[in-house]
Every structure is written in C-alpha cells, then in structure tokens.
C-alpha cells in the first residue's frame, strides 16, 4: 500500500506540470483542446491525490509501523478516531492534506468554469497548477508521508517495522482535532482561488470587476473558514493547554490571523471598487497579500525560524518555502507594476464624511494591524539579524497595539454603515448618532458607579453598546420602511428585507458577531485566579466561590494513566457544580497532559487545572481561573459563521407585482 501511495503521489508532479503547461499554452493560443486538456489534468491531479490520501489512511488505520509517519504519530492503543485524523497530526501528513485541498479547489474551479470565462481560465488553472507543482515537490521529495522506517544494522541501512508507534501527541488528542486543522487549511488554501483569478486578470488585462464578481463567494468562504478556524484553535488552546486563556499571540496563532486581517480589509475595500471604480491596485494587492501571507503562515510553522508551542521544528522545508514565496512575490508585484496604468481609478473621492472614506479608514486600520502583527511575530528573527539574540515580544506588546486598533475598528463597524455613499451631511449624522452616543455615555456612567475602573474595558463596552444599537436600528428601520409599503408584518418585512440584500444584512450579522466577541475579549480585563495545594477535605476561595476537595482518584487504561480531583464548587453556600480537573500521563509518547474542567455560563467560566503533586507528595496543586464572558467569544464565532453563510445566499428577487 505504501508503494501504491508513493507511485500515486509521484504521479501528481507530472500531472501538475502537464496542467500548468497546457493551461499556459491554451492562454496563448486560445485553443479549446488545450484548455480542455488542462481541465482534465486538474481532475486527474485531484483523483491521484485523493487515492494517495486514502492509501495513507489505510496505513494509519491498519497501524503499519514500517512507515515512519504512521509509527511517529500513532500507536496500537490509540482510539480509531484519532488514527483516522492522524492524517493531519504530523508534519508530512498535514502537508499532504494541504496538497489535497489545493487539488480539490483546482478541480472545483475547473469544473465550475468549464463553459465560461475562457479568457481567464487558462491563467487561473496555470496559477493553481503552479501551487500543485510546488506542493507535489514537497510531498514527494522533501517530506514524503510514505517514507519507510530505516535502522542501521552494522554499516547498512535496513528497512524495519517498529513493534509499536510513538503515539499521537497528547495535546492533539482532543475532539477539536477533527475539525480545527481542516477548517483552517481550507481557509488558508482557499485564498489561492481569488489570487489565481487576480493573476489571470492581470495577465489578460481584463481588469474590470469581472474577476471580483467571480471570486466573491470564494473570498467570503475562505474568510469565514479562516475566522472560524482561528476561533476553533483558540477554543482548543483554552481547553487543552491549561493556562487559562485562549489567545497568546503565539507565532502560529499570528500566522493564521495575518491573512484574515488582509482578507477582511479586502472584503470591505472591494465595495469601493464596485461602487466607484477606485482602489483597483489596492484590491489586487490585498488579494495577493492574503495568499502570500497564507503561504507565509505555513512557512512560519514549518521552517522552525520562530519557536512556538505548535510549530514543527526545523523540518528542512524553510528554503523551499522561502524560494516559492519569493517567486510568488516577485511575479505578482511585477505583474501589478506592469498593469498599474490600466488600474487607474474611474472616480475621485468626493467627501471626507462618506461611506467610501469610512472604508478607507477601515483599510488603513487593518493595514496597521497586519504590519503590527507581522512585525511582532518576526521580531525574534529581525532582532537576531541585528543583535545576535532572539528577542521575543510578548502578549503585552501585542495588546498595547492591537487593543486600540481593534476598538477603533469596532467603532467603525457602527459608524461606517450609517454613512451614505459620496456625501453625508452633518445634520443626518447628528440624527443617526445622537441616541446611541447618549446610550453609551449612560452605560459608562452606570459601569463607573458599579466600580468598573479599567479604561479599555469601559471604552470597549461603550463602543459595543453603540455598535449593537446602530445595527438593531438598521434592521428595525429598514423593516418598518418596508412594512409601510407592503402588506407584510414586521417580521416578514425584516426577513424579506435581509433576503433581498443578503450581503448587506449578512455583513451586519457579522458585525454583531464581532461585538459579541469583543465583549468576550473585554472579559480578560476582569480575570482572576488562585492556586491552592489541597488534600482530601481541604477548601479554598476564589471571589464569591468556595471549593471543597472531595476526593483524589487514580486510574489507568492502555493509553494513559490519570489522576483526577473531585472539587465541589459553592456560591453563597449553595452547591453549584462538581468539577473534575484531571492530569494524564500518556505511555506511548511518554508525555503528561492536563485535562481542564470548565464550569461555563454566559457570565463567566470557572476553569480548573490540576497542575501536579505538591513537593511532599501528599497533596495536589490545583489552579482555578475565573474568566468573565469567555463564552461570548464562542457564541460570537457561531454568529459569525451564520452571518457568513447568510451573506452567501443569493439575493431574493421579487416579481414587480409583489411587495416592494
């Protein structure tokens, strides 16, 4: 089976080259036959890679420990579920997953456009096939998942089969494992589609809004997957890493945030191009930057240049990625410079107080955020170049910069949609903003009276309140206007209103989701924690809560041994819950792991970690965190997903006789 996998993977390289070359030739000669051949090449690449993935799955499921990847990432005792998802647990396997998603997307794009966009398609396929070539080279020659195990016998290397595997990294043994990596990868890889169309538009000179319309759904899908993938990663870190938080500005987290920032900027600035024919170069640059940052993120996690909790250390892929990234950058920037004269704006900015200037400001902030995160992430490398030491900038540095930028962006989500295109008069502004501003001021006074003193938190709550107000007013006002002119009731009117412009109202939903998430982020300002050494019968306090240690139990199965603390949680002498933080020790990988227990409500999470034994071995050390509003982050992400799906629905069209 490993041989078959190897052969299949090996075929991917010539098939990708064939696709790229025929596509390029089709673009030059405009011959249908060539384009059809390129299309079939894309289907073939997909088929071959799918079979290779199945072959690797077969090896994982049957625990074939003659294969290095299988032996390093699974063991006999590993539950079947984790054997299957071990496909993306290790470096080589996850690279195969990347490759697979690239081929899936290429095949889908080839099929979607089989009867249209003949001018663009050759170059789209060429750009996507170039990616396939790169990843097939990596998968076959540099990090092949079908590599067999070798051992030295005397002076010769011989194949051998391990008696058992090393097992899956305990941190990865969590249900989120099934969903987080693929979701994030789809988000990363998806950026290649708008990129390919942008490149095709640049090459052919068909620089109108055509490529933008064609890739709108792809851009939005990618964006949504990236957002949800990032939050899932946060959730995973929260429940699995056991340090009480969900975001630490780790290089790998930042790597996923970077393309999200640029693609969010793009989703906004593209509207200026659609309405005013402006920012054409900028939009191209954002699409290109999103793609390059997605590749850069993969490079960052796999090259080992920046140390991180979950980076794959020094895997030798660094140079290959650096070359590919460099080539991509030079190629796209050259194309952009070559076409810059054709990308002149059709109109000029008319007023500083208008929707378009709101979007511009939004883009400026996103650009700042991207540069800040990139700088902070790369600072260890930059500092090493100049001083010889790796100096890491910590979360406080990121928070100092990103909190103001984030709040300014949040404020814009409230202000922007209320500005009219072209020109907004001051009178109307007063009318739109008067009440929500007054409401926010009252909220701040109330919060101050309640004893909230953190300036950023007050600002964040005030802005959240303001934005939520404006969003609700948008829906209600729109529905009321519609209702006046039709026979619909309020809810019908609201439904029809939003279905007639899914992009606008899906966008508002996403804005509301961001508000909810920001309330969750702001909760961080009020976190508290305590650490206690407890034996059975001991108790300790955190805020209004009292915890009683009831029992410490030890257990063992074939995968791991464990120690569990049973902790009763009281508030005002009333038993609220019994939580069971656990510490495990995995045999195969010889690694410990903490299983936190979380009591979660809308208002706050009580998060308990069993850190270990006290020095004398008679007591256990337990760390309890009280984290307000954390669940808002997950709820917000859920709303964001719904909003993204809604924005992708086609607009409902009404017959002329119907309600208007």
């Amino acid at each position, binding site marked *: 089976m490993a041989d078959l996998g190897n052969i299949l993977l090996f075929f991917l390289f010539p098939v990708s080259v064939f696709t790229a070359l025929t596509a390029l030739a089709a673009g030059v000669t405009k011959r249908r036959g060539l384009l059809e051949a390129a299309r079939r090449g894309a289907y073939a690449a997909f088929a071959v890679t799918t079979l290779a993935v199945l072959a690797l799955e077969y090896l994982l499921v049957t625990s074939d420990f003659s294969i290095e990847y299988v032996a390093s990432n699974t063991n006999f005792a590993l539950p079947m579920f984790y054997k299957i998802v071990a496909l993306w647990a290790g470096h080589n396997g996850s690279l195969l997953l990347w490759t697979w998603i690239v081929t899936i997307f290429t095949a889908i794009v080839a099929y979607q456009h089989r009867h249209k966009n003949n001018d663009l398609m050759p170059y789209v396929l060429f750009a996507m096939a170039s990616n396939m070539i790169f990843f097939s080279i990596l998968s076959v020659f540099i990090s092949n998942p079908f590599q067999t195990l070798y051992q030295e016998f005397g002076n010769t290397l011989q194949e051998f089969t391990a008696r058992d595997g090393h097992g899956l990294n305990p941190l990865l043994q969590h249900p989120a494992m099934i969903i987080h990596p693929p979701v994030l990868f789809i988000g990363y890889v998806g950026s290649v589609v708008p990129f390919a169309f942008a490149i095709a538009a640049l090459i052919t000179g068909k620089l109108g809004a055509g490529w933008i319309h064609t890739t709108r759904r792809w851009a939005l899908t990618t964006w949504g997957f990236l957002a949800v993938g990032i939050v899932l990663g946060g959730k995973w870190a929260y429940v699995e890493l056991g340090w009480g938080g969900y975001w630490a500005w780790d290089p790998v987290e930042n790597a996923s945030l970077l393309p999200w920032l640029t693609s969010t900027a793009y989703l906004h600035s593209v509207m200026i191009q659609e309405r005013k024919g402006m920012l054409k170069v900028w939009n191209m640059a954002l699409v290109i930057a999103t793609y390059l940052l997605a590749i850069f993120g993969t490079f960052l996690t796999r090259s080992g240049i920046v140390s991180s909790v979950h980076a794959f250390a020094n895997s030798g892929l660094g140079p290959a990625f650096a070359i590919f990234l460099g080539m991509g950058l030079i190629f796209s920037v050259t194309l952009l410079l070559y076409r810059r004269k054709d990308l002149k704006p059709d109109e000029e900015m008319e007023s500083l107080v208008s929707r378009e200037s709101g979007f511009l400001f939004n883009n400026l902030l996103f650009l700042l955020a991207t540069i800040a995160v990139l700088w902070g992430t790369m600072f260890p490398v930059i500092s090493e170049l100049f001083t010889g030491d790796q100096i890491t900038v910590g979360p406080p540095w990121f928070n100092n910069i990103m909190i103001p930028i984030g709040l300014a962006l949040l404020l814009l989500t409230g202000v922007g949609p209320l500005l009219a295109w072209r020109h907004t008069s001051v009178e109307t502004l007063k009318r739109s903003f008067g009440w929500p501003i007054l409401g926010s001021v009252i909220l701040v006074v109330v919060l101050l009276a309640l004893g909230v003193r953190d300036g950023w938190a007050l600002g964040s709550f005030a802005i959240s309140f303001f934005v939520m107000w404006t969003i609700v007013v*948008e829906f209600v006002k729109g529905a009321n*206007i519609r209702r006046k002119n039709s026979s619909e009731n309020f809810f019908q009117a609201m439904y029809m209103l939003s279905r007639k412009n899914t992009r606008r109202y899906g966008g508002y939903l996403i804005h509301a989701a961001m508000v909810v998430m920001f309330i969750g982020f702001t909760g961080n300002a009020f976190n508290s924690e305590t650490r206690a050494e407890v034996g059975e019968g001991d108790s300790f306090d955190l805020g209004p809560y009292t915890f009683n240690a009831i029992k410490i139990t030890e257990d063992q199965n074939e995968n791991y041994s464990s120690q569990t603390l049973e902790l009763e949680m009281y508030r005002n002498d009333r038993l609220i819950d019994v939580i069971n933080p656990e510490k495990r020790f995995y045999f195969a990988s010889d690694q410990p792991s903490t299983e936190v227990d979380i009591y979660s409500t809308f208002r706050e999470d009580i998060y308990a970690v069993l850190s270990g034994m006290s020095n004398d071995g008679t007591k256990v050390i337990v760390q309890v965190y009280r984290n307000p509003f954390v669940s808002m982050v997950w709820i917000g992400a859920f709303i964001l997903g719904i909003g993204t799906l809604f924005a992708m629905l086609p607009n409902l069209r009404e017959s002329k006789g119907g309600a208007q």
Partner: protein
Amino acid sequence: MSYLAYLTGLAFLVWIVMPLFKKDSTWVSLHMEVEELAERKQRVYGNIADLEFDFAMGRLSEKDFKTIRTSFLSEAGRVMEKLENQKSSKLMDRIQNDIEHLGKKKKKNKKGSKTQTAIFCTECGAENLSEAKFCMKCGKGLS
C-alpha cells in the same frame, strides 16, 4: 488485480491527453468595450439602488439626494447611449447577449421574460427605472 490497476491508469492517461489530438477550434475574446460598458451600467444601477436606500434610511439630506441622483441619471444616460450604439452592430448585439447570459442559462427560465421599461410613481407621476424601489422625485416606495 494489478493489471486492472495499470489498465485503469492507462485509460485515464489517454482520457487526459485526448483533447490535445482532437480537431481543434479556438475561442474569440469578448469585446472589451462592451464588457466595460455593461459593467458601468451595472455599477450605476447599483449606485442608484444604494442612493435610494440611503435616502430612505435618512442618511442623506434631500438636497444631496437630488444632486447625486441627477449626476447618476446623466451617467446612466451616457452609458445607455453608448451601449445602444454598440448594439447597433449585429455582432456586438450577439456578444452583449452572450455577456448577459453567461452562466445564467438555468436561471433564465425561472425569471421569465423581463422587459426593461420605466415605471411611474403613483404619488407624483415621475418616471423611474424599472428596478427602482423608491421614487427618485418624492421618495415614495414604488410597487
């Protein structure tokens, strides 16, 4: 078993390269100017729809609304005129048709025939574009 695999692989390979040996035809690039005009038309319609919406939601004063509307209307007029000129050529007509129906073949039947006629406001009698949701003169909702 392995023979079968080889044969499938070979058949697949033949299928991929087959189009290369077919008697070939080439495609003609769509005329850029018509495409550009169609895009401008779409943009101006979108702008008018947005303007009406913004006005209805009370985001701009009546004075601004009227000034901007006038400029959009004259642009729409210019674009339509140019499009008409282009359309006079039969070939261009066909291409234009191609553009408008690109990838919309399936949806076409559902919508039925839709003619681009003006509609009139019941309140003030002003002429409006058929897509208009609100009257451009008095702001009344159109049905």
